[in-house]
């Protein structure tokens, strides 16, 4: 395919020190680089867009529920949907996704049910128990640690002679961890079929990207490991899809790991416990709003006659209602069973854990009496 050859060249020839950012769809929804357009059908793009809308709607609903005191802490994704859905769509069925903790769009696209996601943020371990066959690892709260798992998963695929690729996420803050260096270097040394995506949303809680590192780009951090790195407009679904698709095929064909910096912006708070007005100007947020990944995809789809404002509103409403319905189920079923707290520490409950469990059950019974 001509397009893929072109992007193949793009990554290979990309100068990590140039700071150049790959963009296909501009902020007004106009395709600037038609030769780079990935070869998906209109229907397929619409599908991806719908997942972005679902992500946005589910996010908004979660925030609303959190304010009502029904949801616990929640980490919103607003503004980062393209950087999540694009890569997820570029993956093959058996490829592995290794999340950080802010990739709702990717999880949903890869088959993690919204209910499971909500269950996680609701505070129940079953929120990390995914349906059979969904090759997505649980959220990794300790920043950076998940990259090693991604490299290990990818190495295992290679050792077993399977050609699955692993896509791993991390944030801009995460690139300062030691694990980031270790994992990229391991991936390079073992030529692991893995794609690292940094969602550079410009903040690590309150710390701006400029105070996280003085490297001009995050992509250039790939140079340390001797692997290719590339800056991509993280708010551009087409660019994210194209770049990650290429990196995945590169990895799958034995070309080794790639680092993709998805240049984006966290429009919302770090989590529901955070108040961003403490550390950033509203004007900055306002300046980023026109670059919203949903807005520009909507403009594109409307311009192609595939979509309308009315449909858009209706879809958002529909997804909002769906999300609420899903959350109601979570509320109904979300309390953990006491047994489950003890049962999964080991495959078999050892004597001392069983004893603690039974003593506690006795205590609970006594309390009821």
């Amino acid at each position, binding site marked *: 395919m001509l397009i893929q050859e072109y992007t193949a060249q793009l990554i290979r020839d990309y100068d990590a020190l140039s700071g150049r950012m790959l963009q296909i769809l501009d902020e007004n929804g106009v395709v600037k680089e038609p030769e780079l357009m990935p070869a998906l059908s209109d229907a397929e793009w619409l599908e991806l867009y719908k997942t972005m809308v679902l992500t946005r709607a589910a996010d908004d609903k979660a925030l609303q529920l959190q304010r009502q005191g029904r949801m616990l*802490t929640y980490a919103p994704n607003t503004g980062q949907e393209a950087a999540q859905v694009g890569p997820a769509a570029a993956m093959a069925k058996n490829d592995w996704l290794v999340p950080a903790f802010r990739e709702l769009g990717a999880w949903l696209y890869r088959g993690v049910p919204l209910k499971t996601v909500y269950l996680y943020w609701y505070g129940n371990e079953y929120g990390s128990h995914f349906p059979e066959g969904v090759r997505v690892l649980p959220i990794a709260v*300790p*920043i950076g640690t998940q990259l090693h798992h991604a490299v290990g998963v990818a190495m295992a695929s290679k050792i077993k002679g399977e050609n699955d690729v692993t896509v791993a996420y991390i944030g801009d803050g*995460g690139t300062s961890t030691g694990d980031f260096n270790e994992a990229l270097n391991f991936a390079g040394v073992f030529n692991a079929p893995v794609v690292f995506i940094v969602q550079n949303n410009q903040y690590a809680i309150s710390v701006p990207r400029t105070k996280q590192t003085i490297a001009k780009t995050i992509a250039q951090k790939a140079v340390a490991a001797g692997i290719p790195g590339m800056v991509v407009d993280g708010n551009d679904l087409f660019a994210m899809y194209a770049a990650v698709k290429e990196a995945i095929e590169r990895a799958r064909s034995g070309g080794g790991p790639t680092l993709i910096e998805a240049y984006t912006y966290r429009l919302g708070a770090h989590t529901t416990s955070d108040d961003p007005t403490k550390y950033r100007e509203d004007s900055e947020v306002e300046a980023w709003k026109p670059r919203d990944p949903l807005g520009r995809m909507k403009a594109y789809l409307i311009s192609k006659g595939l979509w309308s404002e009315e449909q858009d509103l209706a879809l958002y409403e529909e997804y909002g209602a769906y999300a609420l319905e899903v959350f109601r189920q979570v509320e109904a079923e979300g309390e953990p069973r006491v047994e489950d707290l003890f049962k999964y520490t080991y495959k078999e409950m050892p004597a001392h854990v069983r004893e*603690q469990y039974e003593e506690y059950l006795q205590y609970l019974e006594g309390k009821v009496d």
Partner: protein
Amino acid sequence: MALMNLITAINHTLDLALAQDERVVVFGEDVGVEGGVFRATVGLQKKYGEERVFDTPLAESAIVGTAVGMALNGLRPVAEIQFSGFVYPAFNQIISHVARMRNRTRGQRYLPMVIRMPHGGGIKALEHHSESLDTFFGHIPGLKVVVPSTPYDAKGLLLSAIRDDDPVIFLEPSKLYRAFRQEVPEEDYTIPIGKAKVVKPGSDLTVVSWGAYLHEALKAAELLQAEGIDAEVIDLRTISPLDRETILESVKKTGRFAVVHEAAKSFGPGAELVALVNEGAFLYLEAPPLRLAGFDITIPLPRGEHHYFMDAQRMAAGLRQVANF
């Protein structure tokens, strides 16, 4: 005097220490501009400048390791780890260097530094935000380990920690950050590290606890009091070095002992206290010493955490057994 909760007391104490000693520097993730995710350092960067109160990149090993370097070069760093569950990347620095520099150099170089972190759970937080590391730190020779249970104590202990010429791990029970307020004097005072405190005298049974659990233990003692059981409750305050005297004296008086803590039971801090009581007051014991401790499981996510964290009632049920043995 002013009414302060634990977090404002810590903020006030850091302010005092920064004002008094220009060698003191305060840093960590989100510590500068934002003033800490728990607001322990709020306002301090404005007041003391970016050179003395600052944000760091996201790297706990570097946070602790640079503190080591600063301490070696004449500063008295106070580093913040955002939650105790994120201190593990810094374990190598803490065990290999923080705890050892003085001995390694036979006293030539030493580390007047403090590592502060929110500790323990019960605040419906995410995974890794509820961890109790008493044993890990207690087991490392060369560290001092402190856990305050009140705003008043927090100030006195933190000032002691900052002035100590040895490294101090300062564990702040996150559940207490905003739990209650207390009169805290504006002026300078310290509370010695290594001294436990008898919070409620009693004659029937000795109960040792610390941090957030101390308050539940006190409530449990009240429940028992109503039944005619007079428990003595000791706030350990310092995990290392342990105040054996206060504990043993109490056990010799009461003949019965229980320790109550959040951390997992096996190889947990309670084991040390039981062993210590065995070593120092075995012949006084009228009942087997009891550990009321966390289950040997991962601390559950918020919906299940009430099963893990003990309330006064469950504590009382355990203590009753010791008293009535």
